[in-house]
């Protein structure tokens, strides 16, 4: 029952071949056996999971399941606030924080009958691309335990890849869902900014953050997204548009669709295995009837710099509240400023401190226009270029990352780490949607991701293309070699 996609579990529950309780127990047992090595989880909620599974089982028995996610064991990145369950954002500063509220996403997943197994690891406050910069411990890539799973949502990606969750959720601020999905060989989707509520999601960069699913296949991704998408009155940036039935749209195929291929996404220094796999994937899509055109997104090369102004600026503001006054860590001192400064020094890791410093500097008197103001204008250019491209093509296809999963500790220099997100960041700056779907393996046996980007709110078409590709290839059957 491990490695069975959620939609097949639902079929088995309906037939009575499996029960949510048995599946939850199997997943919890596998976590017990495996997670000492992968270390995907920060918190496991065994009793709550089993209680939810028993409730689900009662509903399936009574013939009143709440939908395709009822009884699905899932993992949540530990930035999604869970009422009564500690939520750390991967930081020592929130080690003891127990939210008295659920994120809207969590509320909706509970309402859909999902069984939450636990909270997964991440780079502290989602700042990073490897999950090495967790305040607690690194997570390892199930395909090669000496390598990183990507990040920042590395815990959820690794859990789904290793069969320690049937599906999961992460957040994507600059690629933090798509990049780990590519590194771990699973499907990962960043919805349009505003499509999924951010309420109760520990904020990194508020204008960029978006919640999205990790899945074993595209069908599951459609179900997981469908369960959490849609307007939320508690999030003023939430888009009040109806949510299509994503799963129902999947089988429409790609015949007649025009795919844009951006020159700027094939750069010097990228892994040749990645380029080969992505170009082969585009051939598959052509074979399915899609047309491919070249598009130009020239501001891509400045997107990274704009992102590394906007993100630290917003993050420095969002993280100001962690001061030892109301919740979380406090390091005592005999005066207030001393207490706050020592609490933040002890509670935050090096990367978080670096970005807080950078962001504070970029917003400080005299530098706003040169950095934040400028970056927001560059962001306008990135948006315009995507809009112009999407006036000609239906979707844009590209690699998710320039390379495959790297070794733990390999990227010491912050700048070389930042370069990992060069293909995913433009999607966040412009607010569009995108998915990473497995499209092969490197010579060394590491997964590669194909990124499909779509117009704002065009998740259905993005998923449809990903599904067509997935059904035409056999990558989704491959699992990491773990006992």
């Amino acid at each position: 029952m491990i490695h069975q996609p959620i939609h097949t579990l639902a079929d088995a529950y309906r037939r009575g071949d499996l029960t949510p309780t048995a599946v939850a127990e199997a997943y919890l047992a596998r976590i017990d056996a495996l997670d000492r090595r992968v270390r995907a989880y920060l918190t496991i909620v065994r009793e709550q999971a089993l209680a939810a599974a028993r409730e689900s089982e009662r509903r399936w028995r009574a013939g009143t399941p709440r939908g395709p996610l009822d009884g699905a064991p899932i993992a949540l990145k530990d930035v999604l606030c869970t009422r009564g369950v500690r939520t750390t954002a991967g930081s020592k500063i929130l080690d003891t924080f127990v939210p008295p509220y659920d994120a809207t996403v969590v509320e909706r997943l509970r309402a859909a009958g999902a069984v939450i197994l636990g909270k997964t690891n991440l780079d502290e406050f989602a700042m990073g691309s490897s999950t090495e910069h967790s305040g607690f411990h690194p997570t390892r890539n199930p395909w090669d335990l000496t390598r990183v799973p990507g990040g920042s949502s590395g815990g959820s990606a690794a859990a789904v890849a290793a069969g320690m969750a049937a599906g999961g959720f992460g957040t994507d601020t600059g690629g933090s869902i798509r990049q780990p999905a590519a590194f771990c060989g699973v499907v990962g989707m960043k919805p349009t900014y505003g499509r999924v509520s951010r309420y109760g999601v520990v904020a990194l960069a508020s204008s960029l953050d978006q919640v999205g699913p990790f899945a074993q296949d595209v069908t599951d991704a459609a179900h997981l997204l469908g369960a959490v998408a849609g307007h939320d009155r508690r999030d003023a940036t939430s888009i009040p548009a109806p949510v299509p039935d994503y799963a129902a749209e999947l089988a429409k195929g790609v015949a007649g669709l025009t795919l844009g291929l951006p020159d700027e996404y094939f750069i010097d220094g990228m892994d040749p295995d990645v380029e080969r796999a992505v170009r082969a994937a585009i051939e598959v899509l052509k074979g399915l009837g899609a047309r491919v055109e070249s598009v130009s997104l020239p501001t891509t090369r400045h997107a990274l710099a704009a992102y590394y102004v906007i993100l630290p600026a917003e993050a420095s503001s969002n993280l100001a509240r962690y001061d030892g006054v109301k919740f979380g860590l406090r390091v005592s001192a005999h005066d207030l400023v001393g207490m706050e400064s020592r609490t933040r020094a002890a509670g935050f890791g090096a990367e978080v401190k670096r970005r807080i410093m950078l962001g504070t500097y970029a917003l400080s008197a005299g530098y706003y226009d040169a950095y934040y103001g400028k970056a927001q204008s560059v962001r306008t250019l990135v948006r315009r270029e995507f809009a112009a491209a999407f006036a000609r093509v239906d979707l844009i296809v590209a690699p998710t990352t320039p390379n495959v999963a790297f070794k733990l500790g390999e990227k010491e220099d912050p700048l070389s780490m930042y370069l990992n997100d060069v293909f995913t960041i433009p999607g966040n700056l412009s607010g569009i949607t995108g998915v990473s779907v497995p499209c092969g393996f490197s010579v060394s046996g590491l997964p590669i991701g194909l990124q499909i980007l779509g117009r704002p709110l065009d998740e259905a078409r993005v998923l449809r293309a990903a599904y067509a590709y997935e059904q035409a290839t056999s990558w989704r059957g491959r699992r990491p070699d773990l006992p």
Partner: protein
Amino acid sequence: MIDRKDVEHVARLTRLALTEEELERMREQLNSILTHLDTLRGVDTEGVEPTAHAVDLVNVMREDEVEPCLPQDSMLANAPDRSGELFRVPRIIEE
């Protein structure tokens, strides 16, 4: 280029107690990152409006309706230090 004094100033602004080594390392790393970020200066953004949001929504508001608060004890439960119904912080020495 930002110097040691700038780094100290920014650390004070954002309430981070940094050690001597951290301050020095931070100065080096920030300069290296800022050198990269300065490539932005080369982008022609004359007359380009800044984008603050990726969504084009305006006038998102709620009606003036009272909703239940959270119980006092659950709002105080995470306090690192408290005195009865109040959050407690060390004494404030004005700067």
